[in-house]
């Protein structure tokens, strides 16, 4: 039953060992403006993107989200947060959060996604349960494609992390794209 039976059955039925292909990264290299490509793709996937000076961050966010009342901010260089969360905070308490502001580690130009990880936010539920999400990303931290991205995040502490690309969405009703399914209703990326 279970484990042993499965492993035995695989051994009996698997083909002779085939080699793991080598990956030639040169096949994917391209001359391109990473920042522009990234920007276009963030928009393509339904996100907003703005290049700003770090000093203007709070003003920019306030302007973009004038009605946000409950704000969790996981950045040192912003004073907008008015709700503190800790590792032992019950994630259910985040249900009424209007806005979460977190740091992104890495942007991927080919698809407009951003790697964010638990190392940058206290509770895993935060970027999903918040109504709006703002990610602050350094303009130096943009790579071309996913293979580059995995090289760059290879040394991280592995707990939980994700590539996030735009706001939550669905086209499950007659293929009509609707923004705001079960996760955050909007994603705004601030490139600093």
């Amino acid at each position, binding site marked *: *039953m*279970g484990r042993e*039976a*499965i*492993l035995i*059955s*695989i051994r009996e*039925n*698997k*083909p002779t060992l*085939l*080699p*793991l*292909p080598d*990956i*030639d990264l040169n*096949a*994917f290299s*391209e001359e391109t403006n990473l920042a522009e490509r990234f920007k276009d793709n963030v928009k*393509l*996937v339904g996100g907003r993107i703005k290049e700003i000076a770090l000093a203007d961050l709070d003003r920019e966010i306030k302007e973009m989200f004038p009605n946000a009342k409950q704000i969790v901010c996981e950045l040192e260089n912003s004073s907008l947060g008015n709700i503190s969360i800790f*590792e032992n905070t019950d*994630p*259910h308490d985040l*249900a009424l959060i209007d806005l979460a502001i977190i740091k992104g580690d890495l942007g991927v130009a*080919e*698809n*407009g996604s951003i790697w964010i990880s*638990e190392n940058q936010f206290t509770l*895993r*539920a935060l970027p*999903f*349960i918040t109504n709006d999400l703002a990610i602050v990303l350094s303009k130096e931290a943009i790579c071309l*494609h*996913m293979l*580059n991205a995995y090289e760059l995040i*290879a040394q991280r502490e*592995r*707990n*939980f*992390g*994700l*590539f*996030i*690309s*735009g706001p*939550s*969405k*669905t*086209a*499950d*009703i*007659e*293929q*009509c794209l*609707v923004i*705001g*399914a*079960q*996760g955050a209703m909007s994603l705004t990326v601030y490139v600093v």
Partner: protein
Amino acid sequence: MSHSKKAEIFNKNEAKVNWHDKALWYVREKRDLSAHKVQGWEYLRELASGIKANVLSNLDEYLIQFEKNAQKNGIKVHWASNAEEHNIIVNNILAEHNAKKVVKSKSMLTEECHLNPYLESKGIEVIDTDLGERIVQLAKESPSHIVLPAIHKTKEEVDILFQEYLGTKPNFGNPEYLTHEARKHLRDKFLKADAAITGVNFAIADTGGFVVCTNEGNADMGAHLAKVHIACMGIEKIIPKEKHLGIFLRLLARSATGQPITTYSSHFNKPATGKEMHIVIVDNGRTEQLSREDFRASLHCIRCGACMNTCPIYRRSGGHSYDATIPGPIGSILSPGMDMKKHSSLPFASTLCGSCSNVCPVKINIHKQLYKWRQVIVKQQKQPLLKNSILKIAGVVLSKPRLYSLSGKSARFILKKAPKFMIYNRLNTWGKARDLPEVKNEIFDEWYKKRTKNG
């Protein structure tokens, strides 16, 4: 009931069939646009196929490695030979936590194992949280497509369904209103859930982590709120190294919907403090498929749905006509391996045009495998029922049964040689009520004569 009979039922509503056909073809076109933007796309497919072939040839070692690394990170690993064992394991985990309310994100494996009815029989509420899956769950149906579960439903049908179950106002099928009402309804379910069940898109041997991809964020809403997360995976979901995700994630969403990547590609490596994370590794007929040399490559499948979107038969017969957990071309290779008797008509639900193999991101030779299944089935099952259905199947969905039953090659030839507008324009779309234009017949005749001449 055979595929042809079920397809006939679906074809009764012509307007809906036409819509279904066009909607899926549109998704196929989006896939093309998106794929063409990627430098090295064909090379990516080759790599993905090569990696999957290596995985199958070393699957036992990779699974052991995965288990060891996952356990090191505090994830609990379970193994299930079949659907029944899988369901028992899941139920036992839930029972340990006295979990009565469960939210589930998309997992074709749990569909295959019929987990929902099993858990419901134990008094557990299971809510499917992907919008499309929630729609079919409320309608007491099964998904008709692996990526677009409710593609067979019109917005007006969803409107009526939601009025009945979610108390929404009549709205002439407004997708935005309906989606946001579903969001409220599902939020409540997420907040009250005791446990979350998700599928697994990729499990990584060298880290012991796994990746779940969604557009809605439902897998994450479930997994991060509930105290227990159970992820269920078939043995073939393993990939050797984390860096290989760089290949598969570039292919998956582009092939599926034409998006450059899914909204959320979540990497789970460790349970959060104070929470539990379980993985159930399931065989359920997969090692048997592994033993079949001709059909083994079907286990490469990453469930993108591209072969369905492109298939002229699928588009005009609907997912339910296949009466199988995985419909469409890939389902027609997988299902006979699970239950040959029940699914013997499926390999015939194809023109063998090869479009499926052309779009498949992991380069499964789908149409060749369909052809091979036909040979196996004809040899093994000589009863008249089947002979009849061979003739009927293509005939119901296509228009000239005699022509198309002669040889799979003939249909493929026509599709390859005919200009695109002939294959895909509205008049010539495969449909019961439509005759293919005579010119096709001529092409076929000419070709056939030439073929016989040249031996």
